[in-house]
């Protein structure tokens, strides 16, 4: 098994600042200009992590803990406020439902738009389109406008494109939960196939702890922007469950 490091975070952190608009200006004047506009607090504290080729890593944590921010930073959608991220491979990301789809265009047209957005060449796309449609099981609807698609159908299409894009690092943020069970299983099976070939690194944000246990080799638990635990899925999930239950009771 190839043990090279494909992705490395070096003290990468993220702090979102409020954008300068009329409200902020008004506050500034009300408070007096001397007081500094204080940032909203870090979304992610400095984080150092490395991921090996072929690893499948789950990220868990409650809502708003910074999981998605971490994925966005790895994907390059948002920039780290400090520190750096080094990667040695092609990233394909599924961070939000229907991301990059154009509602007025048909499913087929969106395959070429979205596929090329994931770095597939048009020639490559032409040869893969049928396979993508087949995997998505959307044959009957593929020439209809994407605006008429349900959430589950969007996920089907997006996932089918993403796995054909030959990703080296695949980032998935909770979108699979929208599909029906049959398709979820199909996706997980496909992911398993990709990972067992050893050339895809999967980073998955999920609230489905069973998937984590069944599917991932490693689990990160993030809470309030801080990495709480990084280790074997069984241990991390158990600690996370304990913590969440005690929070609810306390």
């Amino acid at each position, binding site marked *: 098994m190839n043990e090279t490091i494909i992705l490395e975070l070096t003290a990468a952190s993220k702090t979102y600042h409020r954008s300068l608009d009329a409200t902020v200006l008004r506050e500034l004047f009300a408070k007096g200009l001397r007081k500094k506009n204080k940032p909203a607090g870090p979304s992610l504290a400095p984080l150092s992590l490395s991921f090996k080729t072929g690893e499948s890593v789950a990220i868990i944590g409650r809502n708003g803990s910074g999981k998605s921010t971490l994925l966005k930073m790895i994907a390059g*959608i948002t*920039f780290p406020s400090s*520190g750096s991220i080094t990667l040695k491979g092609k*990233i394909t990301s599924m961070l939000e439902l229907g991301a990059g789809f154009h509602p007025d265009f048909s499913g087929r047209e969106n395959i070429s*738009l979205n596929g*090329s957005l994931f*770095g*597939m060449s048009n020639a490559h796309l032409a040869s893969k389109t049928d396979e993508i449609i087949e995997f998505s099981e959307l044959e009957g609807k593929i020439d209809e406008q994407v605006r008429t698609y349900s959430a589950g159908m969007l996920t089907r299409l997006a996932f089918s494109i993403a796995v054909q894009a030959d990703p080296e690092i695949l980032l998935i943020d909770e979108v699979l939960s929208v599909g029906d069970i049959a398709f979820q299983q199909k996706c997980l099976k496909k992911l398993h196939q990709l990972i067992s070939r050893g050339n895809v690194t999967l980073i998955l944000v999920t609230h489905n702890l069973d998937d984590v246990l069944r599917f991932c080799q490693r689990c990160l638990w993030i809470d309030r922007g801080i990495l709480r635990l990084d280790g074997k899925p069984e241990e991390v999930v158990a600690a996370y469950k304990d913590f969440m239950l005690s929070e609810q009771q306390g």
Partner: protein
Amino acid sequence: MSQITLRDSKPNFNLLAIYRELWSYRSFLLNWTQRELEMRYRSSILGVLWNLLNPLLTMLIYYFVFSRISRDSIPNYLSYIFSGLIPWFFTAQLFTRASDVLWQNANVLGKVYLPKEVLVISLVLSGLINFLITCAFILPFIIWQGQRFSFELLWFLPVVALHCLFLYSSGLLLSALGVLVRDLGVIMNTLISLLFFLTPVLYLPTQVSEKFALIIANQPIAILIGLYRDVLYSASHPNWTNFGLCLGANVLWYLVCHYLFRRVQPEISDLI
């Protein structure tokens, strides 16, 4: 072997790396540009044809209005205004759309990684295609109005290239500014009509007062349109001094705009 990418908070202005990455998005650029051209007229009956009809109809209006206005001071007045109007439309449309392009595509940029320059390049490309199609219809008319055909007309191509470089640079700057200062999109139309009157499209640069002429003489769009006129209207080569200055200034302008674009990119990414 895949290339190594480093992401941090410092602006990255390694042009070689930037363009190598942009090159890998060429399929997307083509698909996206095709979408741009189709999108606006998607559900209309005439569809993509509007890309062509719209500018032609506008030209027709100008034709009917201005062929009825005394034009003794400018010979071949219609060629004169058309050779200015076509590049002007290209410019105005790009300025308007660029100031809004990153916002409009927040749906993509906020969820999938994409080098943002691609969207500006796509705007220039789709504008260029419309521009060239319009030219294909209007240029024969202009040549027919003028007296002769000459090979100096080929200077049209370098002038177009220079124009595109100018629009690309300005587009980068405007797209970034449009995100940082949301008000820009609101005021853009007004700014563009101001620019229109500061550009000798309908009048001669010599027809205005001296002070005003000084502004016009140093205004980049006016200089570019002057170059178009040298080729299309006067049927000669472009004014060498202006062409040289324009080329130098444009390269400098490009570097400034692209650097600033990269400089504010982290902030922009968090705002959209």
